[in-house]
């Protein structure tokens, strides 16, 4: 432990001492709660920690330094698009006009935000090549559920009640099958073709009158563009099913491929991936969903409408009975969408296309460097999109060092690990996505680190197997954590003082 740098911290509860506080709000009149019936009152105040501002702030500042973050270094996380989070976007979301607007404020006093939301919809319509957008979903998975529920409602609206199957490639993200289940449908898992792409025959064999939808990630979670997608979409539509596109990988195709034009019916967009809204250590995000015309009637309510006089309003309660209903309270994660709007406007059309070009170029460059080194297996050697798979399969056979060990050893080199063991279909997979905002110097340093670790696996495998060595903690006892879960601090009795009055 040094006077600068990361230090493990006691818990907030250990900093607590009865009577510590910093006065933030005025004291209420002493009779403020007299009208509260006794049976509804809390008997004992909650034993929340009593800390003063200095101790609390130091706690959170020091805790934060234990994190890796985009603001401190590189995240080569496949499927996660950990790109730069521009600082102007944080400023924008905090403008009082945006931040302090109540979600039930009448339309008349919310015109600025309503216009912004409407403009975001228009831009996403253009990017997706679809016809309408809802901004309500709070994340990608939430968007998936929204999309699949709309597909279900569409079939039902046509009296087509027996479509219960959702076809999902086995390389798909876990949210795809989980979504199907939440929507009351059955997941039919389809094996990937040996080249990593869609096995067209297997799909065709599974398609039929019970197929509600296919869920396709394009580019796939292997980072490959599904070049047989046109044929697949035709087959899907031929059996009366609809095609859902998981848009998590949209960063690879902006201005190069519009799912709506190509024949997809629904897609979600992860603003926290493609449009740079910050991941926040796990969230928040936003998962707007774009649909083709015939699905628009089913969009969640309320939508943002633009009146002929140029004013904006929300749909009234019950205005559009075909809607699948609400997916969440209020109108959406507007604070996230303000950031996305700033990002979209900053780039404009040409900037968005440049993002994709640079992201794909960076991924191929990095892939090329690793392939040339021979240090790792590269299961799919052709051109990739924004991400690619490397595998430690041979290294493991030769040295016993696994992908997990390599991931941990990267932490000692100052890098976050790539996404590992995903997709599940590739042995010892590392899914690597550099994004367009990392410099060539960073890409080179990362490739060098990976190559050096592969050599280390031969020369000194134990160093790799016991990594990390320089992180704030060593590897964790995850089994123990799950066996005897300790999920909350239990304050000792007496850890609180009664309120002063």
């Amino acid at each position, binding site marked *: 432990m040094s006077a600068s740098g990361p230090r493990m911290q006691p818990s907030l509860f250990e900093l607590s001492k009865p009577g*510590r506080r910093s006065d933030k709000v005025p004291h209420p009149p002493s009779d403020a*709660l007299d009208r509260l019936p006794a049976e509804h009152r809390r008997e004992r105040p909650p034993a929340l920690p009593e800390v003063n501002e200095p101790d609390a702030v130091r706690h959170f500042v020091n805790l934060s*330094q*234990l994190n890796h973050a985009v603001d401190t270094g590189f995240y080569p996380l496949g499927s996660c698009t950990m790109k730069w989070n521009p600082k102007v976007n944080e400023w924008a979301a905090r403008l009082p*006009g945006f931040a302090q607007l109540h979600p039930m404020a009448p339309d008349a006093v919310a015109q600025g935000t309503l216009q912004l939301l409407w403009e975001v919809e228009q831009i996403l319509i253009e990017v997706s090549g679809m016809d309408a957008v809802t901004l309500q979903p709070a994340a990608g998975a939430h968007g998936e559920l929204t999309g699949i529920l709309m597909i279900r409602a569409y079939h039902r609206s046509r009296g087509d009640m027996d479509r219960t199957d959702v076809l999902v490639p086995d390389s798909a993200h876990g949210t795809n099958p989980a979504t199907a289940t939440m929507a009351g449908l059955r997941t039919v898992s389809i094996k990937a073709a040996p080249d990593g792409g869609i096995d067209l025959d297997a799909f065709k064999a599974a398609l039929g009158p019970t197929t509600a939808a296919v869920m396709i990630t394009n580019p796939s979670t292997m980072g490959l563009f599904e070049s047989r997608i046109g044929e697949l979409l035709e087959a899907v539509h031929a059996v009366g099913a609809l095609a859902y596109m998981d848009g998590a990988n949209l960063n690879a195709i902006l201005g190069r491929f519009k799912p709506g034009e190509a024949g997809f019916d629904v897609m979600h967009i992860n603003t926290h991936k493609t449009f740079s809204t910050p*991941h*926040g250590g796990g969230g928040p995000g936003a998962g707007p969903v774009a649909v083709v015309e015939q699905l628009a009637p089913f969009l969640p309510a309320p939508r943002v409408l633009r009146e002929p006089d140029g004013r904006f309003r929300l749909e009234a309660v019950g205005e559009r009975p075909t809607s699948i209903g609400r997916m969440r309270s209020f109108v959406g994660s507007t604070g996230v969408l303000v950031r996305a709007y700033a990002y979209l406007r900053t780039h404009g059309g040409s900037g968005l296309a*440049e993002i994709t070009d640079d992201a794909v170029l960076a991924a191929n460059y990095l892939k090329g460097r690793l392939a040339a080194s021979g240090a790792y297996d590269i299961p799919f050697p052709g051109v990739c999109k924004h991400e690619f798979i490397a595998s430690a399969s041979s290294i493991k056979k030769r040295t016993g060092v696994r992908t997990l060990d390599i991931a*941990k050893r990267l932490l000692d080199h100052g890098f976050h690990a790539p996404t590992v063991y995903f997709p599940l279909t590739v042995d010892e997979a590392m899914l690597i996505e550099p994004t367009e905002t990392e410099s060539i110097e960073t890409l080179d340093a990362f490739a060098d680190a990976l190559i050096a670790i592969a050599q280390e696996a031969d020369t000194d495998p134990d160093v790799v197997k016991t990594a990390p060595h320089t992180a704030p903690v060593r590897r964790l006892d995850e089994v123990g954590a799950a066996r005897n879960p300790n999920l909350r601090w239990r304050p000792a009795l007496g850890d609180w003082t009664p309120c002063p009055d």
Partner: protein
Amino acid sequence: MAYGPHTPADRRRMLASLGMQSVDELFADIPPALRSTPLRLDPPESEQVLMGRLANLAGRNRVDLASFLGAGAYRHFSPPMVDHMLLRGEWYTAYTPYQPEVSQGTLQSIYEYESLIAELTGLDVVSASHYDGAAATAEAALMTCRATARDRVLVSRAVHPHYREVLTTYFHGAGLQVEDIPLVEDGPAAGTTDLAHLERALADADHPVAGVVLPQPSFYGLLEPMAEAARLAHAAGALFVAVIEPVSLAVLAPPGAYGADIAAGEGQSLGIPPQYGGPYLGILACTDALVRQIPGRLVGMTTDTDGKRAYVMTLQAREQHIRREKAASNICTNQTLLALAATVWLAALGPHGLRDVAALGAAKAAELEAALAAVGVARLHAGAYLNEYVVRVPNPVAVHRELLGNGVLAGLVLAEAVPDEPSVAEGLLVCATEVTTTDEISAFARQLQSALAVTAHPVGGAA
């Protein structure tokens, strides 16, 4: 160039390493027929110009009104130290802590969040986190079905209408049943959940009930008979879900105390700005018995190989990335940063500050009640409230619009928000918190008085 680092020379070098001339070659795998039309969007904007545009849009929202609007989203005082912490890139630009060794900050903060909410709710297990109060409530109801292997839940009509709508969307999708429990129509309990109806509904042996969902306080601001409802639910083998508002738990009996199995609710009131609806914080907590049914992220305390205390995501076998179609939920990205916001806010205020916030809200609401009563506007219901309630005004749509024009946001017009609840058709749902000022209260009363005078004696208008 917006944020990219690549100079033309860098691009050339990268392409050369691939033996390519043009970046177009990297997109040769897109079949020509599927290639996109160009993006018809505006050109890029410099930061200075963009900021002008955004300031202009933000300026077109009116956030300077004397506002009495609550209805599920509340203005609260947030000490500047809270946003100061949230602005640290180490928090908001971090990813999900899948590499715990370099994510102890996020992991410990989540553990602390779980601990704080557990203490507030009187429950054991808290997941971190859900999209919002509505989604958390829907997930809570789904939990009751999984845990009891039953498919019917009863939801009080005193629950926030958005939550009920979301629950219905989720349940219809999943092929499960939702039934309303109506409100008591009159008497001292008017506006609260009709327990007699609940008892009858629970008694239907052919359709056993998985869960019963009641709010505290209710959408109408009333305190609900939670202990009695929980007893009835348990007697029928159902689980009991409390929809809570966390600030109120400083002074109200916690769900754990009245026998709730699950608590769900909106964490926005823990210092998160209203920002027109999100990002918010869905709170979900349950008893130890339900730990393997709860969806969402759980962080536990453990040790590293040196025996040092550390934190890690745990019980991941419930989650979609492991269990896929058998997962407890499809949730992946959640609201972690908002859980952090709530944690810092609670640390800033502490137990006494939180209680002061709740008590000040109650005091201001009582002050408002008196001020409105003085101009002839009374509460609609008789029951006890904390800091929100319904007042009755004639012609609420017109009155509300009139006041808005004069700088007062007179709460929520219930005729518009819950058109299917005729008992509140003349109601305005109003709320006060610690940030409500006496000036605002006087302005409201004054404006209301003159608006009602106009409504009573319309000048040349239709009566």
